[in-house]
């Protein structure tokens, strides 16, 4: 046998013991779940076996409580705690989600300082030792001097069984001669404090600077509503209040009864079951005996009703269960309104339920913030129960339950965790508001592996293409979908030049009635959309066709949204997002009223396949960019017959816009294999077809068709990969200086590409897929696909920029912003605003390089003056 450890009776001895315990705990921390569970089992078994002698010892030593009830507490502390936590994982990996790369690893905290009260000495010792063993913590107990022998005996039994089952020595220890100095020293040296005790103790625990799980006083009020089962209520309260002579902190201290009738019935039941109602003269004697200057007389704690009456000089039958004082005041000056830690109960009469709640609230506020409250009621009275739940500032609210047994959990409700340390939340100055258990004694480490964001690829359910496909596609409306009423949204030019007529003829042929709103202007306004929507609402279409360029299609999308969901607000819908899948605002489902078809008449915006729409409120000048897949058309018809007569300027501007779409989507931090494919093909087609489409117009239908498909594919790419800084900057050039969108994009394109291509950017974009700055390699990849060759990425990149410059020049894009005719003074005056707004543009977030505003300003200035190209490296 090893020598017994030296007694802890001084700070030095305590320090030495803690040092040994640290070593033991370090070893214990390596134990597996299996080893720990074996120890937990043996320790619980041993404690349970000793429940009767420990109960006897506790009563004998403290002179408080009832042996038979303490047996139950010891039994509970071993059996219920074991049962609840036997399968809980407390060692190493306790959760492992491989798909998400998310793991939780449990580690012990170290040394637990446990302060144990006189009221429940052995059961609390068993409870705290067991949860420490389960969590591989070491525990050192500071017992109360009045209960030190039985507390230490209980701890010793658990320790011996644990050590026999393989637990390292010294994992469970105690202070033999508790003093304030040692207790304070213990709290300072431990890693966490499990304090159970009075306010002084809990204060000391919290001021020790170590994390503490402390509990405070209770002053549990019980209400018996006039709908309650009075017999059940009264006998539950007697059962609870007499349990261990009323020493459980959750025990009822007062009962407030609603209404005369219930009061009378309850009083009769209390009396019939052996409770004693104090006569007026006796009341004062008991008041003086139980509370001295506002504190409980230590001599009455845990004594029987008879003994307390005797101390007070009141004669009651020996078998009296509870002394009941019928009182009216809930003020602290009324002794009966206090926590009494004995079978003494205050009884109040309330005129109604609200009055009873007011009593309970006051009693809780003056002595039991955060602890427990109790209500006896017919559970059909949900309204009253809701009120009670809401009003009580207590962490346990018990319904039709004896509060001593109910508060500690798992006896009258099987989801409430069993515990002998009851958190009282911030109301009670505690760090926990629930019943304390093993989880509070663990440090849980989270291991999070890098994962790539989930992505999707979304397009309209049908995209018709090839010259002449429009009538074929429209035929489906009648033959397949059985649509009856179709509404066309377009602009004056297209309406007057007969473009919409071709649709109407087809609809007539199928017997689909139709109406047309043909007043969409470029940069459509909300007011215009509202007019169209009014017409639409009157017509009640089951199908909407938007025919035109970006403006008509955007306006059609907005009208569709307003028609389907008039309740939606543009302020909400236009809120910026970081990730479209995590945005704050959820768009409603579309398509419940009408099917939406987009038919482009120019090859540029790709709006027929994108979830974007921009609308301007002409009253306020606010531009609402609306983005959501809800706005994605359900069918797109890309028929080059609709695009043959585009004017040259439009061909040029929308053509270079397509190239920008494809390039930005290709280097976006959200690009994917799916968007790459369409982006590459789109940009290649621009290089191959735009010059001829620009030069030859309708006389080269092949080139026109190439551009139509390029536009749609680029739309698909950026509908899913989004755009970048180029668009952010161009949007503001359009907004402030009215440079057509495509031209604005093209003027700055190669500079932004250089800026993005920097190998040492100031900051890069944030997205798990984007691991390191590599936009230059991406541009080079795209360049090679478009036929550019060279010895390395640098050369290819330079040649690619030259190729883009050449294309721009061919289609008449000015070289600088100044060349477009923007006045220098006007430009400089708006520069700061443009910069800030461009920074805040929704497109900025997907850019591979996260821009600083100062850098964006430089880009604007470089593009304005046509300064010599530079590297934009962060040097």
């Amino acid at each position: 046998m090893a020598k017994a450890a030296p007694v802890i009776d001084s700070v030095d001895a305590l320090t030495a013991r803690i040092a040994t315990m640290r070593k033991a705990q370090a070893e214990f921390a390596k134990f597996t779940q299996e080893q720990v569970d074996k120890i937990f089992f043996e320790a619980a078994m041993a404690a349970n076996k000793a429940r009767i002698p420990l109960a006897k010892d506790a009563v004998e030593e403290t002179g408080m409580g009832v042996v038979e009830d303490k047996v139950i507490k010891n039994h509970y502390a071993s059996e219920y705690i074991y049962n609840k936590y036997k399968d809980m994982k407390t060692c190493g990996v306790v959760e492992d989600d491989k798909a998400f790369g998310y793991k939780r690893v449990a580690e012990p905290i170290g040394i637990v300082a446990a302060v144990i009260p006189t009221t429940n000495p052995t059961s609390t010792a068993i409870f705290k030792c067991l949860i420490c063993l389960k969590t591989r913590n070491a525990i050192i107990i500071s017992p109360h001097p009045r209960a030190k022998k039985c507390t230490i005996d209980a701890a010793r039994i658990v320790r011996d069984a644990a050590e026999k089952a393989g637990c390292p020595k010294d994992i469970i220890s105690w202070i033999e001669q508790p003093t304030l100095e040692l207790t304070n020293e213990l709290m300072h040296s431990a890693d966490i404090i499990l304090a159970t005790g009075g306010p002084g103790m809990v204060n000391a625990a919290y001021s020790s600077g170590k994390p503490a799980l402390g509990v405070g006083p209770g002053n549990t009020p019980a209400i018996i509503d006039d709908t309650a089962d009075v017999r059940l209520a009264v006998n539950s309260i007697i059962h609870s209040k007499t349990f261990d002579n009323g020493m459980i902190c959750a025990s009822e201290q007062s009962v407030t009864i609603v209404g005369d009738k219930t009061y009378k019935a309850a009083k009769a039941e209390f009396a019939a079951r052996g409770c004693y109602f104090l006569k007026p003269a006796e009341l004062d004697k008991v008041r003086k005996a139980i509370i001295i200057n506002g504190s409980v007389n230590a001599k009455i704690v845990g004594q029987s009703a008879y003994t307390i009456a005797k101390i007070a000089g009141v004669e009651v039958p020996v078998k009296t269960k509870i002394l009941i004082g019928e009182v009216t005041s809930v003020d602290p000056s009324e002794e009966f309104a206090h926590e009494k830690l004995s079978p003494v109960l205050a009884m109040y009469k309330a005129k109604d339920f609200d009055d009873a709640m007011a009593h309970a609230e006051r009693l809780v506020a003056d002595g039991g913030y955060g602890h427990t409250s109790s209500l006896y009621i017919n559970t059909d009275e949900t309204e009253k129960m809701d009120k009670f739940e809401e009003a009580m500032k207590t962490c346990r609210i018990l319904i039709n339950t004896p509060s001593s047994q109910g508060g500690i959990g798992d006896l009258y409700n099987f989801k409430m965790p069993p515990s002998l340390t009851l958190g009282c939340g911030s109301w009670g100055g505690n760090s926990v508001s629930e019943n304390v258990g093993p989880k509070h004694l663990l440090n849980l480490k989270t291991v999070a592996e890098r994962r790539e964001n989930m992505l999707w690829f979304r397009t309209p359910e049908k995209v018709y293409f090839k010259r002449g496909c429009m009538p074929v596609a429209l035929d489906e409306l009648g033959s397949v979908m059985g649509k009856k009423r179709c509404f066309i949204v377009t602009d004056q030019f297209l309406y007057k030049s007969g473009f919409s007529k071709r649709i109407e003829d087809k609809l007539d042929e199928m017997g689909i009635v139709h109406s047309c709103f043909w007043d969409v202007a470029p940069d459509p306004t909300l007011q215009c959309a509202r007019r169209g929507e009014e017409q639409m609402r009157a017509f009640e279409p089951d199908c909407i066709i938007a025919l035109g360029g970006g403006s008509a299609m955007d306006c059609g999308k907005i009208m569709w949204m307003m028609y389907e969901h008039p309740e939606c607000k543009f302020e909400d819908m236009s809120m910026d997002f970081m990730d479209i899948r995590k945005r704050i605002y959820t768009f409603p489902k579309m398509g419940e009223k009408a099917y939406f078809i987009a038919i482009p008449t120019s090859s540029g915006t790709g709006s027929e396949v994108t979830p974007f729409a921009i609308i301007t409120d002409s009253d306020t000048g606010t531009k609402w960019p609306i983005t959501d897949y809800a706005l994605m058309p359900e069918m797109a018809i890309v028929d080059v017959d609709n695009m043959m007569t585009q004017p040259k300027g439009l061909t040029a501007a929308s053509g270079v816009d397509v190239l920008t779409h494809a390039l930005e989507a290709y280097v976006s931090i959200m690009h994917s294999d799916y968007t790459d494919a369409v982006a590459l093909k789109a940009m290649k087609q621009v290089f191959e077809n735009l010059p001829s489409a620009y030069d030859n117009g309708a006389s080269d239908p092949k080139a026109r068709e190439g551009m139509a498909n390029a536009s749609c594919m680029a739309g698909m790419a950026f509908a899913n990969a989004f755009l970048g800084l180029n668009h952010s900057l161009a949007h503001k050039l359009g907004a402030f200086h009215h440079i057509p969108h495509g031209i604005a994009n093209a003027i700055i394109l190669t500079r932004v590409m250089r800026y993005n291509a920097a190998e040492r950017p100031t900051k890069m974009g944030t997205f798990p897929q984007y691991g390191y700055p590599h936009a230059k390699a991406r541009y080079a990849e795209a360049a090679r696909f478009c036929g550019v060759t060279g010895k390395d990425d640098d050369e290819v990149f330079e040649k690619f920029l030259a190729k883009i410059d050449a294309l721009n020049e061919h289609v008449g894009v000015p070289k600088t912003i100044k060349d477009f005719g923007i006045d220098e003074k006007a430009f400089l005056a708006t520069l700061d605003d443009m910069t800030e707004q461009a920074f805040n543009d929704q497109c900025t977030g997907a850019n591979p390089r996260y821009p600083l505003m100062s850098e964006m300003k430089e880009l604007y200035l470089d593009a304005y003056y046509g300064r010599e190209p530079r590297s934009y490296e962060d040097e």
Partner: protein
Amino acid sequence: MKLSDKKVELASRGNKVVYADGDRIVKVFNSEKPVSDVFNEALNLARIEETGIRCPKVLEVSEVDGGWAIATENVPGTTLAKKVADDPKHEKKYMEQFVALQLEIHKHTSPLLQRQKDKYARMINGLECLDATTRYELLMRLDGMKPETAVCHGDFNPTNVIVGDDGKLYVCDWAHATQGCSEADAAMTYLLFALDDQKTADEYLDLYCAKADTPKQVVRHWLSIVAASELSRHRKVNEEFLMSWVDVADYQ
């Protein structure tokens, strides 16, 4: 120092005799009184004087007949206790003055005065009439006292308040002065009243709590502590009474 022949004995308690000697009051301690205690009392008085609280000035500390003595100013006037005894009809008025004076004192700080908490802890630790468990309970309760710095007289009762002939109030006998929790100081005053008369004690507490805007239970919370510290003065007559206040349980 030498006392003159004109000296008049005012009081004689345990280890000291108090004389009025012309314009001086001299407290003469016998040789059993530790010298450090005498100097400490003089030091307390000097510190209190520096705070601006009205009190008799300390004039001299020196040996007298083998013991040590403190000489202070003799403030011309009458103690508040005597005023009340002579004029019981106006007891309420005097009580108001008394409470107002105590609250005024509590507003002062004196950073070098000894700490109330330390003093009480020392007194409780030295009590042999209490068992270790009760001392532990008391120390635990005391440990929850927040660190406060109000000047506390420690023995504030009407015999220590002089109504000067100039109409101003002076406070004497600062031997127990500390810095700490004003409610605990009020608890001590309540206790001193209660030793004589519970009714006056209750009147005092009502008035103090109303004027200080403090709940009574905050004052009462310290009664077991001050009762224990009073026990350490070993006055047999009060022992049973004080013991009945000491043995209370903290809520668990």
